[in-house]
C-alpha cells in the first residue's frame, strides 16, 4: 500500500500497460513533449519513445478514427482526448464507427480501443471545458463507459479496459487528479458497481467526482440519524442493475447524484429502472441531484451553484423522508 495521487495511479497504469504489451501505445494531443494537459503522461515520452507516446496534431476526429483503425489492425491503442468537450469533434468516429463495427460486420471485426478523457467542472474553465457528457456516451450501445472515482479504479480500470475486446471509454473527473490515497493490490472488474458505504435507510447512487461529495453528505446524514448506503456506479454502461436494485429494495429510498444535466440524464435512466423493477418496494419517489441546466459559467459562485453539492444532496435525501425524519 503506497500513498499516491489519482493522476499518479493513472500514470502507473499506463506504464504497466505499456510494459506488459508491445501492442499498447498512447496517442493524443500533447501527451508527449508537453507531458499531457493534466500531466498524466509526464515522463512517458522519455521512457517509451515517440512511437508509443505519440503526439498528435489537433485532429480529434482523425486520431480517434486512427485509433479505431489501429485497433482493427491488431494494436491496442489508448487514445487520450484532453477534455470531454473536445471529444465532440470525435463523436462521429466513436458513435458511427467504434460502437457499430462489431455488430454491423456481423461479428467479423471488433475494436479493442481504449479512449481516456477528462470530464467535469470545478476549475472555473467555463462553458467549453467543463461539461460532464459521460451520460451521453452511456446512451450508446457497442461501447463500455467507465468512471473511476477511486485510486484503485484509476489504476485498475485501464488494464481491464485494455483486456476488453470492445471499445471502452474512461472518464477521469478533473477534480480527482490531485486526490491522494492508497492503492491496494486488489484487481478490479469493469462490470460491477461498488457499495462504498453500507447503510440501511436510503441508497445514494453516484459516480465519478460526485462520489466524494456524496460520501460527505452521507456523514452529515449519519449525524442526523439517517444511515445512507452509497453506491459508486463505476461502470456507466452497462449499468450494474443487480447492485443498484438490490440496495434500493433494501433501503426503500433512493437519490441519484449525477454531474450531468438532469433532462435525459443517466440519473433519469437509473430512476426509470428503479421504478420498473422495485416500484412496490419504494417508500418515497426517487430523488435526483443533477447539474443545473445551464452551460457551466466561469465565476466560482455560479459554478458552485450549478453543480451538485453536499447540502443539496443532504436536502434531497431528507426530502425522501418527508417531514418524518
Amino acid at each position, binding site marked *: 500500500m503506497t500513498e499516491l495521487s489519482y493522476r499518479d495511479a493513472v500514470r502507473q497504469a499506463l506504464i504497466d500497460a505499456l510494459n506488459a504489451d508491445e501492442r499498447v501505445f498512447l496517442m493524443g494531443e*500533447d501527451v508527449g513533449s508537453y507531458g499531457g494537459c493534466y500531466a498524466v503522461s509526464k515522463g512517458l515520452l522519455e521512457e517509451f519513445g515517440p512511437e508509443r507516446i505519440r503526439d498528435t496534431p489537433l485532429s480529434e476526429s482523425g486520431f480517434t478514427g486512427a485509433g479505431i483503425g489501429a485497433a482493427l489492425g491488431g494494436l491496442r491503442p489508448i487514445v487520450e482526448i484532453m477534455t470531454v468537450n473536445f471529444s465532440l469533434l470525435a463523436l462521429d468516429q466513436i458513435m458511427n464507427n467504434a460502437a457499430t463495427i462489431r455488430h454491423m460486420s456481423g461479428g467479423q471485426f471488433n475494436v479493442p480501443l481504449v479512449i481516456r478523457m477528462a470530464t467535469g467542472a470545478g476549475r*472555473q474553465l467555463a462553458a467549453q471545458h467543463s461539461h460532464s457528457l459521460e451520460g451521453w456516451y452511456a446512451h450508446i450501445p457497442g461501447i463500455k463507459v467507465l468512471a473511476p472515482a477511486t485510486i484503485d479504479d484509476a489504476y485498475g480500470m485501464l488494464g481491464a479496459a485494455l483486456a476488453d475486446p470492445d471499445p471502452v471509454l474512461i472518464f477521469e473527473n478533473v477534480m480527482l487528479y490531485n486526490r491522494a490515497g492508497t492503492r491496494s493490490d486488489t484487481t478490479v472488474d469493469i462490470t460491477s458497481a461498488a457499495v462504498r458505504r453500507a447503510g440501511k435507510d436510503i441508497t445514494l447512487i453516484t459516480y465519478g467526482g460526485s462520489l466524494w461529495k456524496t460520501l460527505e453528505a452521507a456523514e452529515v446524514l449519519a449525524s442526523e440519524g439517517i444511515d445512507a448506503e452509497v453506491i459508486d456506479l463505476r461502470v456507466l454502461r452497462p449499468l450494474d442493475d443487480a447492485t443498484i436494485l438490490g440496495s434500493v429494495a433494501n433501503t426503500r429510498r433512493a437519490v441519484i447524484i449525477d454531474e450531468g444535466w438532469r433532462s435525459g440524464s443517466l440519473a433519469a435512466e437509473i430512476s426509470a429502472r428503479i421504478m420498473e423493477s422495485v416500484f412496490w418496494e419504494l417508500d418515497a419517489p426517487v430523488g435526483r441531484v443533477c447539474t443545473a441546466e445551464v452551460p457551466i459559467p466561469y465565476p466560482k*459562485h455560479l459554478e458552485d451553484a450549478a453543480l451538485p453539492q453536499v447540502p443539496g444532496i443532504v436536502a434531497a435525501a431528507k426530502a425522501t423522508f418527508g417531514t418524518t425524519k
Partner: protein
Amino acid sequence: MTPAKKAKLHLNRGNALDRLKMMIRIRRFEEKCAELYTQEKIRGFLHLYVGEEAIATGVMPALNTDDAVVATYREHGHALARGLPMNAVMAEMYGKHEGCSRGRGGSMHLFHEPTRFYGGNAIVGGGLPIAVGLALADKMLGHQRVTACFFGEGAAAEGEFHESLNLAALWKLPVLFICENNLYAMGTALARSESETDIHTKAASYKLPSESIDGMNVVNVEAAARRAVAAIRADQGPYFLEYRTYRFRAHSMFDAQLYRGADETKEWEAKGPIVRFRDWAVTAGLIHAADVEAIEQEVSGEIAKAVAFAEAGTWEPVRELTRDVIAGGKL
C-alpha cells in the same frame, strides 16, 4: 475615410503613436492579468498574447466599425484593439457582473455586441465556421461587411479549418482568415504536427488569395490587412493572411514549457513587436522618447482604473443562473 484611403496605410506621427499605444495597452493589461492570476483574482485558464500584439493592433484599423470579429481563447488583445472598453474586459476577467459577457465567460469568452465581437471561442477551430456563417449572412442580406476570423496555426490541423476555407472560397464569402502562427500549439511545435508547415499554401490550395507576413512588424501587419480587406470588399471573396509570430509566455498559466528552451524565447523577445516598432519610430523621428513615457503613464492609469472597476464590480446573483440559457427563461 474613403475606401481608397482606408485601403492604404499612411504612417504619420498620429497613427504611429496610436499603434504603439495599443500594443503597450495590451501588453500592460496582460501583465496585470498575470499578476492578478497569482493573487487568484482571475481564475480558470488564462492565455496571454504577449509577443503577438502587433497582429491585433495592425489588423483592427483595417476594419470598419460594422465589420465582425471572431477570435479564440487568446483574445484579450483582439478585444482591446477592437475597442471593447478595458473596464468591461477586466471585469470579465474577474467574472464580475459588469464584465462584457456578464461575468459568465471569463478570459476565454469575451463577447461584445456593440463592436460585433463574436467571442472568445475555446474550441480550437470552432470559430472558423461561425465566421463563414456571419459572412454568408452578410452576403445574402446584402450587407457590405467583412468578418475577420483569428485563430492559431494549431487550428490548421482540424477538419473545420479545411471545411471553412473551402466553403468560404466556394461561396465567395467576405471572410478575412487570420492565422496567428506562433509556431507552437500548446507544446506541439509546428513541424511536429503538420506535413506542410507553410500554412498559407493550404489556403492557396482552396483557391484563396493568401500571404505569409512577418507578424512582429505592426506596419507590415497593417499594410497586409488593408490590402486583404480591400480585396475582399472589391470582389467579395475570402482572403487568407498568415502572420508569423511567437508567444513569449507559457501557453496558459499551467504550462511548464518543457517543449522549448529559454534561449529561443529570448531570441524572439529581442525582436518583439513593441521594442521593434518603438525603436524604429524613434529613430525615424516619428515619435520621441518622451512620447513613450507619456503612453506608459496613460496606460498605467487606465489599467489602474480598470482594476478598480473590476474590484468594485458585483457578483451576478445566483438566482440569475438560468437566465439567458434560452430566450424567455423557461428551460
